[in-house]
């Protein structure tokens, strides 16, 4: 009975570890596929208990049964009335190789797609099978599920109540496993120590981050983006003038009751002095994207139809879901990208609209954690202009509005034909210092450049302003094209501004954020009344340096890889030994012989397909193992070559001899033992052949007669 409970516990531990991928895929989405694998392992273990002939094949049967369960549940579409096909195999293979990467390249929770989550039930299945096979050593049996647990936390670390609950449940299951696996007084001490240790360790792991909160937990998803090749299209910023030349051309239509003031296509963050580029951090859009931390939000939605397709889809700052298409998304800017689309696109977009308190916005500081962004080679006169435009004010949202007002009051929007184009420093210098006239392209680009010079983190968005509202679908035309700047405000996120004064107007319903911004803008003191703040040390002085965690991440990954590689060899050997140890009869005795041979091979002793136990006894370095090997040889000879065959006593004696060999090898120098422990030689197999290559001549030692089995037979 205790063995059954142990099997259930170790399988359950793997299942619990698997469910901790919940933040990635959604809690309930994972449970069925994990449960089917765990149940398959438990069921197969029970069957093998009742049918001893199947015991040796238990891991294989359990794996196959678990795979079948996962296939029926997740890959039914690839089967032929439930029977796996080549497509099923391909899907499973893809699940092993690609699904974990796709999951990392998606926003979380991911879409309900088997191609994304397939690796989780597979990993849980492997952990459960390994755990059951290692039940002889309960501590080792827990390791596979712990590995799954660690992997899940590297994907998305649980926090708070969820973390505490998961840790306690896992610890409870492991405690039961230890309790039933090691009954008796001697082992109860182990349990008494192990259970509190596990519980305290897990609780400490949870409590430390809570007591000393720091940066967001590390995730494998960090700095990872979709591998989909991005389109090479014209920068929408450069298309503004051309669009304004054909103002009535419709671009897209949308339907929705929520107030909208702008639709964004792209957000450009990097400026080299000549080019503005968008960040390449797209991810596959998952089931739903949560709102950014900060102000309270309200869900909004609209249906958008683009007759000419993408690749960029009109979007909002914080998209939540997209139905109808499966675009890539940059969660930080709200950009939606559909790289390989042709023809019309129709989709339902929902987003989070921030509810901004005017007072909070008025006193807001800029977000110092946002990198200031590049500027290229700044013309000297422009740097002076930035200082003048903000009167040297320290970076703040009010300073941003002062700069916005400066542009609104001192520069004019160009109209008619022959509109100015260009957004590099040469064009911006001409706009700022000479012509003082431009489109939103120059206004927005100049604002972002001046803001960055003033120490205000800013970025440039390109899209369309919402036309005057009405009932029914709203048609957005070329004349609505607009570029605008956004500044990073601490605690509130990116706030769009309007240096050209074109985004708002009569008949348009402002969003809560636009309304709050307008109120703060209206409350700005006149330019003559403003205080003269102390001069800043420099345009970039306010921007704190961001720690570069790239090397640390690389080191962590390398460390994990190293641990995986180093730990894999001893683990594989332990599993192999466990499998061999469970065999009975002749196979058990031969397994003992192979175990001894592999032990010696890892210590550098030569062995060929023709090497017998006595050969090893004669050639093994050091007499410490020779006697044990001769004892083993006697048992192997009796089991394999005599009519006596294998007996339980012989099997026990054979494995006793293997233990003797192990003890003998343990007396070798520590460097030799360490080298042997991680030597994968015995795992790589060897070539067995009846043909003899001529190149092999002379490399084998001359055989010598060793003592007979009869001299050792008891």
């Amino acid at each position, binding site marked *: 009975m205790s063995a059954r409970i142990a099997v259930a516990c170790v399988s359950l531990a793997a299942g619990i570890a698997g469910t901790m991928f919940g933040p990635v895929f959604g809690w309930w989405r994972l449970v069925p596929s994990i449960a089917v694998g765990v149940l398959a392992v438990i069921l197969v273990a029970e069957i093998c208990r009742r049918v001893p002939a199947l015991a040796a094949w238990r891991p294989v049967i359990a794996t196959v049964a678990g795979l079948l369960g996962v296939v029926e549940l997740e890959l039914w579409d690839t089967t032929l009335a439930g029977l796996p096909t080549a497509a099923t195999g391909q899907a499973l293979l893809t699940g092993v190789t690609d699904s974990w990467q796709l999951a990392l390249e998606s926003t979380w929770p991911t879409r309900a797609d088997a191609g994304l989550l397939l690796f989780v039930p597979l990993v849980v299945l492997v952990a459960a099978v390994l755990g059951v096979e290692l039940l002889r050593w309960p501590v080792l049996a827990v390791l596979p599920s712990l590995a799954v647990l660690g992997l899940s936390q590297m994907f998305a670390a649980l926090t708070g109540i969820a973390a505490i609950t998961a840790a306690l449940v896992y610890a409870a299951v492991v405690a039961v496993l230890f309790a039933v696996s090691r009954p008796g007084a001697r082992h109860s001490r182990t349990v008494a120590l192990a259970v509190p240790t596990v519980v305290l360790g897990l609780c400490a792991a949870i409590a430390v981050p809570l007591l000393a909160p720091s940066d967001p937990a590390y995730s494998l998803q960090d700095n990872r983006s979709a591998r989909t090749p991005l389109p090479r299209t014209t920068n929408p910023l450069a298309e503004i003038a051309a669009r304004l030349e054909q103002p009535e051309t419709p671009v897209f239509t949308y339907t929705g009751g929520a107030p909208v003031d702008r639709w964004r296509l792209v957000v450009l963050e990097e400026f080299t002095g000549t080019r503005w580029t968008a960040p390449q951090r797209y991810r596959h859009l998952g089931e739903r994207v949560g709102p950014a931390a900060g102000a309270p939000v309200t869900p909004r939605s609209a249906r958008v139809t683009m007759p000419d397709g993408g690749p960029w889809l009109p979007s909002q700052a914080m998209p939540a879901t997209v139905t109808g298409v499966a675009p890539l998304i940059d969660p930080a800017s709200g950009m939606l990208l559909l790289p390989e689309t042709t023809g019309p696109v129709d989709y339902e977009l929902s987003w989070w609209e921030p509810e901004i308190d005017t007072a909070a916005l008025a006193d807001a500081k800029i977000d110092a954690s946002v990198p200031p962004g590049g500027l290229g080679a700044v013309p000297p006169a422009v740097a002076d202009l930035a200082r003048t435009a903000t009167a040297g004010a320290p970076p703040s949202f009010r300073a941003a509005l002062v700069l916005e007002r400066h542009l609104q009051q001192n520069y004019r929007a160009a109209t008619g034909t022959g509109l100015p184009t260009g957004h590099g420093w040469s064009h911006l210098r001409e706009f700022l210092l000479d012509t003082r006239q431009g489109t939103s392209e120059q206004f927005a680009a100049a604002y972002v450049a001046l803001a960055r010079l003033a120490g205000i983190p800013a970025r440039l968005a390109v899209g369309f302003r919402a036309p005057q509202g009405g009932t029914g679908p709203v048609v957005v035309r070329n004349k609505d094209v607009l570029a605008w700047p956004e500044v990073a405000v601490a605690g509130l996120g990116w706030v769009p501004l309007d240096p050209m004064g074109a985004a708002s107007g009569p008949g348009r319903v402002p969003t809560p954020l636009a309304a709050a911004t307008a109120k703060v803008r209206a409350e700005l003191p006149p330019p003559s009344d403003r205080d003269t703040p102390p001069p800043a040390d420099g345009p970039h002085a306010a921007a704190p340096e961001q720690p570069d965690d790239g090397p640390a991440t690389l080191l962590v990954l390398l460390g994990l890889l190293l641990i995986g590689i180093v730990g894999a060899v001893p683990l594989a050997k332990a599993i192999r030994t466990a499998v061999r140890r469970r065999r009975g009869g002749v196979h058990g005795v031969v397994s003992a012989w192979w175990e001894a041979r592999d032990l010696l091979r890892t210590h550098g002793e030569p062995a060929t397909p023709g090497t017998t136990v006595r050969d090893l006894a004669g050639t093994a370095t050091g007499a410490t193992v020779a006697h044990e090997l001769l004892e083993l040889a006697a048992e192997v000879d009796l089991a394999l070559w005599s009519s006596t065959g294998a007996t339980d006593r012989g099997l026990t004696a054979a494995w006793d001899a293997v233990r003797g060999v192990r003890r003998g090898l343990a007396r070798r120098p520590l460097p030799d033992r360490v080298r042997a422990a991680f030597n994968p030689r015995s795992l790589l197999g060897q070539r067995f052949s009846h043909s003899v290559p001529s190149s*092999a001549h002379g490399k*084998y030692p001359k*055989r010598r007669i060793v003592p007979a089995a009869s001299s050792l037979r008891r």
Partner: protein
Amino acid sequence: MTQARSVPAGEVYERIAANVTRVVHGKPEVVRLAVAAMLSEGHLLIEDVPGVGKTTLARCLARSISGSWNRIQFTPDLLPGDITGVQIYHQNDNAFVFHPGAVFANVVLADEINRGTPKTQSALLEVMAERTVTVDAVRHEVPQPFLVVATQNPIDMGGTYRLPEAQLDRFLMRLPIGYPDLRAEMSVIMADSSGMEPDDLPAVVDIPTMIGAVSQVRAVEVSTGVIEYAATIAAATRQHPELRYGASPRGSIALVRAAKGLAATHGRPFVTPDDIKDVAHPVLEHRLILTTDAELARRTAGQIVDTVLAEVALPVMSAARV
């Protein structure tokens, strides 16, 4: 017909080995293999350089058995009739009467066999294979048990005739003796001073006991896996690129027979792959004929047997896959 006497074959070996090692020092493996050949009803060719104790070993083996034994000193002028026997005309009876040659004994010591001419050497072919001698169309059986223990010097020395392959194939084993190690050589010198000679050795096994031991060896169990292993080794020699001729099926049979004898000397009622490997060199080496290229490359049959033994997988692969 002599009645067999049931003494365990292992004990027979112990008696003979203990007797022989009173004179032959430091070569227990050679003695064991030699006795194994005797118990397997095989003939023994002891080959090595002069002075290492070939003849002494052969004499000791012959003296240890209480049956008849003859010594034939092979010389270039030795005639086949001297070995097999001749028909002599008796005037009184007006008939030809067969006078048995030296081979009519339980143990025949053919000393320096490669100093006899090929014609004379060939006189041993029939008796070694069939244990009969045919003279003038009349077959004469030799006494049982029958064992030829021959000695020869390496064939690259002068005044010798290389044994034909057919002759070599009739020897179950070809045993080199080798130089003794320092301690063994000291024992040899001291034994020489004490004056112990092979002729001084008593017979420790009588003929019925020997026949009984031979019967026990025939009954030693050989599993199918071991037979497969022996056949595979022989087949591997036939496929070896450095061998013009590998071991014949007679070689496979000899391999198993010798292994049975060796198992019996260990007191073991079954043969193991270790037995096959232990007898592989003395049984196979003299049956292998190297290619010219291999000889020019100074390859030896022993080296090739070593590689074959190392590369041929143990029958455990088919007996129990793990």
